[in-house]
C-alpha cells in the first residue's frame, strides 16, 4: 500500500523537525512542533478511541490548532466533515447528522460546549436529518469531507477519497514547485477546497504555509505585509485579493519580488487587475485555475505576455490538467467536436465519487453516454463554455441562467451584468417570466441609488449599447428597497419570480 498523506507529513517532521511548517500571526511553528500538536490533539480528543467506521465533525476557524486537529484525524484515518463555521448552528447540526458523525470536535478541547453538537442533541428524533453515511462506493478510503453551497436547502457534502487528495497534492507540488523552502500563502478559509493546494500540498511536501487571518482578509496593508515579511513564493486567491494588493501598493509603489506563482481562481479577474500583476510581482508567473469542490482543479491557463501588454478581456479557463478529460455538450445533447458553446462536463483524477446524499447525484454525475461500460463518471459543471478555433475555452456563464426568449438562447446573467454596469444601479435581478406567446420574457428588477433619477428609458438607452435585441428586458421595474436575498447573501431570484407571479395573478 502506498504511503498515506499523514505518512508524508510525518516523514517531513522527522527529517526536518526544525523547518518551518506554519506561520501564524508572526509566529513560526516548525514541523516537529506541529507533529507534537497533532499528537496532543489526538490524545485530548481521544480520536483513536472513536468508532473507526464513522466520520467525525470538525468545527474550527483557521488556526494552527485546527490544522493539528485535522492532522490527528488524518493520522488515525478518521473521515472528517469540515463545514464552514459561518453556517447557522442548526445547519451545522443537520450537516453533522447527515454525515453520521460520532462526535463534533473543536480545537483546544472545547467539544462539550459546542453549540452545533448541542443542536444535534436537541433536535427531536423525528426532525433529525437521517445519516447518509457511508457514501456510495464506500467510506473506508474517505478523508476530507468538504461542503459546497447548494442553491436550495442544505450545503452538499462532498466526500474526497484519499487517492483523490493524494493525486491532487502531488500535481500541485509539481506544478507550482512546492517543497522544502517554499512559502505558500493561504488566503481561503480552512473549509475551502483551495486549502488542498495552499495548506495540504505544502505540508505534505515540506514547505511552509503563511496563514492569512480570516478576520483581516480584506485588509490590504496586512496582506501586503504578510507577503513581504514571509517572502511568499506561491499565492492562490480569488481576484479580490489582487485588487486589494493593487490598491494598497498604488500609494507606496511596493512590489513583491518573492512571488513566483500567482494564481487567481473562483471568479473572473478583471482586465484592469491583470494589467497590474507584472508590476506587482516582477518575478511572477500568472495562472487562472478553474475547478470546483466536486472535481477539484480541472483546467489551468497561464497568462503569457502580461508584461508586454497582452491582456485578454475574456479570461480563458484554460487547458485540462494532466489526466483530466472534458466534454462540451451542446443544447441538443450532442458533444461538440469543434467550436461552439455548451455545458462543460469534467472528469478529473481528483474528484469525488458523488455527494454524500446520493439523491443529489442524478443531476450532476453521469457516465459518458458514449463510453459504453459507463466506468467514467463525468461531473456536469453547470458552466457554459465556448470553444474557440484555437481550442481554448472561455466561460460564458452558468447553465442555470440560460433561458429561451422567442426561440433564442439568452443568459439572464449577461443581462444582469449589463444593467449592473450603470453607475446608479445598486443591485439587479433578471428573471424569465413564462409568457404564452414568447415562451419566456425577461423582467428586470433593479434597485437604484437613493438620489438617482434613473428610469426605464435611461436604462434602456444604457442597455441598447450593450445588449442584443433578444437580451433586452421586456419589462423593467425600478425599486428603492433591497432585493430578496438567500441565507448566503446572494439575490434570491426564485423569490423575485414568485412575487412577480403573485402580482400577475392578483392583477389578472
Amino acid at each position, binding site marked *: 500500500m502506498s504511503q498515506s498523506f499523514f505518512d508524508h507529513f510525518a516523514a517531513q517532521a522527522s527529517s526536518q523537525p526544525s523547518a518551518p511548517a506554519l506561520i501564524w500571526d508572526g509566529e513560526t511553528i516548525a514541523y516537529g512542533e506541529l507533529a507534537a500538536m497533532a499528537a496532543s490533539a489526538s490524545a485530548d480528543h481521544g480520536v483513536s478511541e472513536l468508532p473507526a467506521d464513522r466520520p467525525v465533525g470538525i468545527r474550527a476557524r483557521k488556526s494552527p490548532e485546527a490544522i493539528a486537529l485535522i492532522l490527528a484525524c488524518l493520522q488515525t484515518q478518521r473521515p472528517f466533515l469540515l463545514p464552514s463555521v459561518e453556517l447557522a448552528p442548526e445547519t451545522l447540526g443537520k450537516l453533522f447528522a447527515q454525515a453520521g458523525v460520532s462526535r463534533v470536535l473543536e480545537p483546544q478541547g472545547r467539544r462539550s460546549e459546542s453549540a452545533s453538537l448541542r443542536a444535534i442533541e436537541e433536535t427531536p428524533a423525528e426532525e433529525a436529518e437521517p445519516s447518509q453515511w457511508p457514501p456510495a462506493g464506500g467510506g473506508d478510503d474517505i478523508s476530507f469531507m468538504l461542503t459546497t453551497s447548494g442553491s436550495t436547502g442544505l450545503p452538499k457534502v462532498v466526500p474526497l477519497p484519499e487517492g483523490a487528495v493524494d493525486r491532487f497534492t502531488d500535481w500541485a507540488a509539481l506544478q507550482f514547485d512546492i517543497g522544502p523552502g517554499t512559502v505558500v500563502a493561504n488566503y481561503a478559509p480552512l473549509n475551502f477546497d483551495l486549502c488542498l493546494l495552499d495548506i495540504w500540498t505544502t505540508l505534505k511536501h515540506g514547505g511552509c504555509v503563511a496563514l492569512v487571518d480570516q478576520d483581516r482578509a480584506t485588509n490590504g496593508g496586512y496582506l501586503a505585509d504578510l507577503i513581504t515579511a514571509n517572502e511568499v513564493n506561491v499565492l492562490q486567491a480569488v481576484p479580490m485579493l489582487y485588487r486589494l494588493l493593487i490598491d494598497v501598493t498604488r500609494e507606496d509603489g511596493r512590489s513583491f519580488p518573492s512571488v513566483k506563482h500567482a494564481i487567481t481562481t473562483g471568479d473572473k479577474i478583471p482586465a484592469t487587475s491583470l494589467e497590474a500583476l507584472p508590476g506587482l510581482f516582477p518575478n511572477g508567473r500568472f495562472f487562472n485555475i478553474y475547478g470546483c469542490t466536486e472535481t477539484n482543479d480541472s483546467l489551468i491557463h497561464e497568462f503569457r505576455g502580461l508584461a508586454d501588454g497582452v491582456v485578454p478581456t475574456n479570461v480563458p479557463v484554460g487547458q485540462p490538467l494532466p489526466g483530466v478529460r472534458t466534454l462540451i455538450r451542446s443544447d441538443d445533447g450532442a458533444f461538440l467536436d469543434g467550436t461552439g458553446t455548451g455545458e462543460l462536463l469534467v472528469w478529473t483524477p481528483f474528484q469525488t465519487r458523488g455527494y454524500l446524499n446520493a439523491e443529489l447525484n442524478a443531476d450532476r454525475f453521469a457516465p459518458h453516454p458514449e463510453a459504453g461500460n459507463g466506468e467514467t463518471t463525468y461531473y456536469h459543471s453547470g458552466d457554459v463554455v465556448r470553444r474557440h478555433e484555437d481550442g481554448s475555452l472561455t466561460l460564458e456563464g452558468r447553465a442555470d441562467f440560460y433561458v429561451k426568449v422567442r426561440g433564442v438562447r439568452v443568459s439572464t446573467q449577461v443581462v444582469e451584468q449589463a444593467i449592473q454596469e450603470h453607475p446608479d444601479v445598486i443591485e439587479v435581478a433578471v428573471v424569465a417570466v413564462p409568457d404564452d406567446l*414568447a415562451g419566456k420574457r425577461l423582467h428586470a428588477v433593479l434597485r437604484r441609488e437613493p438620489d438617482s433619477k434613473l428610469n426605464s428609458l435611461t436604462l434602456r438607452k444604457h442597455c441598447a449599447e450593450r445588449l442584443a435585441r433578444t437580451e433586452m428586458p421586456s419589462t423593467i421595474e425600478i425599486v428603492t428597497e433591497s432585493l430578496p436575498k438567500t441565507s448566503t447573501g446572494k439575490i434570491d431570484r426564485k423569490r423575485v419570480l414568485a412575487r412577480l407571479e403573485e402580482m400577475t395573478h392578483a392583477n389578472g
Partner: protein
Amino acid sequence: MDDTTAKIKQFIVDEFMPDVSVDELDSDFDLLTGGVVDSLGLLQVVAWLETEFDVGVDDSQLGPESFRTVDAIKTFVDEARGTANAG
C-alpha cells in the same frame, strides 16, 4: 410639438414605460433597439393607431421600420391619413 406627436408619445409612455415623463422621450429614440416595443407591443401600437387616428393598417404595411421611432410612427399616420383623404 404637434398634436399627433404628443399623442403618440403619451401613448408609448403610458403603455410601455409609466415611470418615464413624456418630455424625456425623444421623438427619434429607437423604440425597437431600446426594447420598449417588441413584436407583441407593435400589435398594441397598431391597434391603438387604428382607433385613435382612424387609419387602416393592412398587413403589408406592418413592417417594424414604420414604428421604430415616434417620428416614424407620425410619418406613418400622416401618410395613412393622406391616402385615406385622397381616396
